[in-house]
């Protein structure tokens, strides 16, 4: 019925992705969320000005702080990108968390096992292994969706728990650090560690390059066009000869691979080992960031840096102003609310608010 209309407006939208309105909405959303957060901080009996100054000063005020911010932002960019690529194909990948975990553990295994390889071989090998295992987990959901019609939201949620259990089992058993009672792997070898450029982790560049790469893939290549078409209208895609099943599976594999790479980059660049307490919630933050960046492969980067900065500065804010670091989760929810509320959207754009996701099945 309204499919053709919405596709047309989608196409119009994608041509002018960088218009003023689409930049202004997230900015205003962030400001309004910070204002409401300030009221909550005030109610708790703390000084919001001191809190925010401390938060943003420690996140963006110094070179070291910026380094920590970008380190926190790196897995968020990749998790957000993973969710965004899935959404472009009409798939809601809630499993970025599990895919990221399997990538993190696989990279830790590779980083420990292939000790002695030179860095220029060791790092890519470990990254590829991490991405591979992320893809592997996502491929299960992709195949079940394409060939058995099982909804990806369900399988990805279930796989999150399954991967968590398997990773826990391996890190407390076969892959556990020798002589250690904690559930964690050994530290990866020195050669497998991603270098820092000054205080900027090189993983951040990987994330940004990948963002640009997928912007190009989705917008400028045939395979990207296939993904977008399947995401917008499965029936039209099928009718025009695109293999919907194959596209669904490959989109899911790509999405899982990016998430797995996110876990691998986190292991090789920041944590240097796998521990269940690491990586918690990163995949779920990816959902927020993908939506905050309006499902645009480059648009997610500023959002990830902002959230990464808040995460980086939260500890100092607690030290300086007494505010619990969990306020960041609250601010994220408020930002997401205001950035997606179409009341605000419509104020700036008169085009129809496009639906990025749909119901359980199509």
């Amino acid at each position, binding site marked *: 019925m309204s499919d053709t209309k919405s596709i047309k407006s989608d196409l119009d939208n994608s041509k002018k992705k960088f218009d003023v309105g689409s930049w202004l909405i997230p900015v205003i959303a962030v400001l309004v969320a910070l204002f409401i957060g300030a009221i909550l901080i005030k109610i708790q009996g703390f000084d919001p000005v001191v809190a925010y100054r401390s938060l943003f000063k420690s996140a963006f005020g110094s070179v070291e702080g910026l380094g920590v911010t970008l380190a926190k932002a790196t897995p968020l960019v990749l998790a957000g990108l993973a969710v965004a690529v899935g959404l472009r194909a009409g798939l809601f990948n809630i499993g970025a968390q599990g895919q990221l975990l399997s990538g993190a553990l696989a990279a830790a295994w590779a980083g420990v096992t292939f000790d002695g390889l030179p860095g220029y071989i060791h790092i890519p090998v470990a990254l590829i292994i991490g991405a591979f295992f992320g893809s592997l987990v996502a491929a299960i959901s992709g195949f*079940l969706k394409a060939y058995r019609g099982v909804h990806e939201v369900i399988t990805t949620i279930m796989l999150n728990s399954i991967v968590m259990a398997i990773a826990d089992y391996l890190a407390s058993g076969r892959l556990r650090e020798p002589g250690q009672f904690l559930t964690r792997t050994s530290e990866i070898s020195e050669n497998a560690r991603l270098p820092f450029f000054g205080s900027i982790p090189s993983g951040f560049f990987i994330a940004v390059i990948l963002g640009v790469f997928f912007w190009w893939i989705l917008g400028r290549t045939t395979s990207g066009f296939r993904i977008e078409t399947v995401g917008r209208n499965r029936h039209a895609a099928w009718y025009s000869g695109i293999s919907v099943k194959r596209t669904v599976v490959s989109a899911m594999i790509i999405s899982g691979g990016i998430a797995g790479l996110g876990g691998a980059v986190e292991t090789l660049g920041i944590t240097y080992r796998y521990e269940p307490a690491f990586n918690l919630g990163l995949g779920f933050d990816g959902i927020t960031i993908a939506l905050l960046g309006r499902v645009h492969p480059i648009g997610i980067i500023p959002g990830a840096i902002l959230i990464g900065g808040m995460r980086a500065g939260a500890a100092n804010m607690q030290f300086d102003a007494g505010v619990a670091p969990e306020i960041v989760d*609250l601010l994220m929810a408020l930002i997401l609310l205001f950035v997606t509320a179409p009341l605000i959207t419509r104020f700036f754009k008169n085009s129809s*608010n496009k639906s990025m*996701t749909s*119901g359980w099945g199509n």
Partner: protein
Amino acid sequence: MKMLTKRNSYIFLALAATAFFYSRDGDITTSVYATGLAFALPLALAAMVGIMCERTGIVNIGIEGTMLISAFVAFFVAYLTQNIIIGLVASLLVGALMGFILALMAVSWRMDQIIAGTIINILATGLTSFLYVQGKTIPSVFQSFEIPLLSKIPFLGPVLFIHGALTFVGLAVILILYVGIYHTPWGLRSRAVGEHPSSADTAGVSVARLRYINVTIAGAIGALAGAYLALELVGSFERGFIAGKGFTALALMIFGRWNPLGALAAALFFGLTQAYASQLMIDQVVNIPSQFTAALPYILTIVILTISAGKVRPPAAEGQPYEKGQ
């Protein structure tokens, strides 16, 4: 008719398995089934939230968040007032409020419903972990009591009729919802709105109003699930307290084909699997790593959905905002 025989064969299989286990060891089977019901109830109630919303065409992936925030309110209001009844009431009100907010976003603002649900989840996580205080206790939980006579029936008595008050309320809600959806005018209207809102509108049903009412009530049911966990089954609250139950419930809803009794059966299967897994661990019958028994219900969900897939059909108007004249 094919559906009917298939369903009957499932029921027969379940009864045969129960009889087999009961003949092997009556006491343990009874206690495993009672525990299984306790595990299943919050999942079943959460699935009811999904069913109520989706039957009227609203996708609710915010069940997890609704349960989390209502369990939080139930526990901390019960702590502050030292009264679990007040805690329960406050929790139900907050749950209804979450439902109302979802309806506001999905119906009035015509937001993407998956995003609306995600906002509820993230908001609940943020609020509860921001306001959480460690080391508080509540005066008591809803204690188990025996329903006279019924609890004396062998096997069924101890499994079904020795529980806390919220278990009985929860089971009643599920039965009422089943009757309501299939045998009342309200149920017919709700299903019509979920399948074909413009027809329902033409027939004089207010689509927006019914969606608001159903999603709000569903929020309160989600709160009952959260309150049951905080005030009866566990008796405490931690960060991340719901641990994915709200999402698992969505699988159970689909597995039960959007039918309250189907979802209840799916939840019971899930709960029993978990109860058996923990019984196996206690008995040390088999030396399975604890992580695998923990993951077993999730693996089973995927396997079963894979086998039964392709035959389920969600309500047709699900996830789409309704605009008059389209």
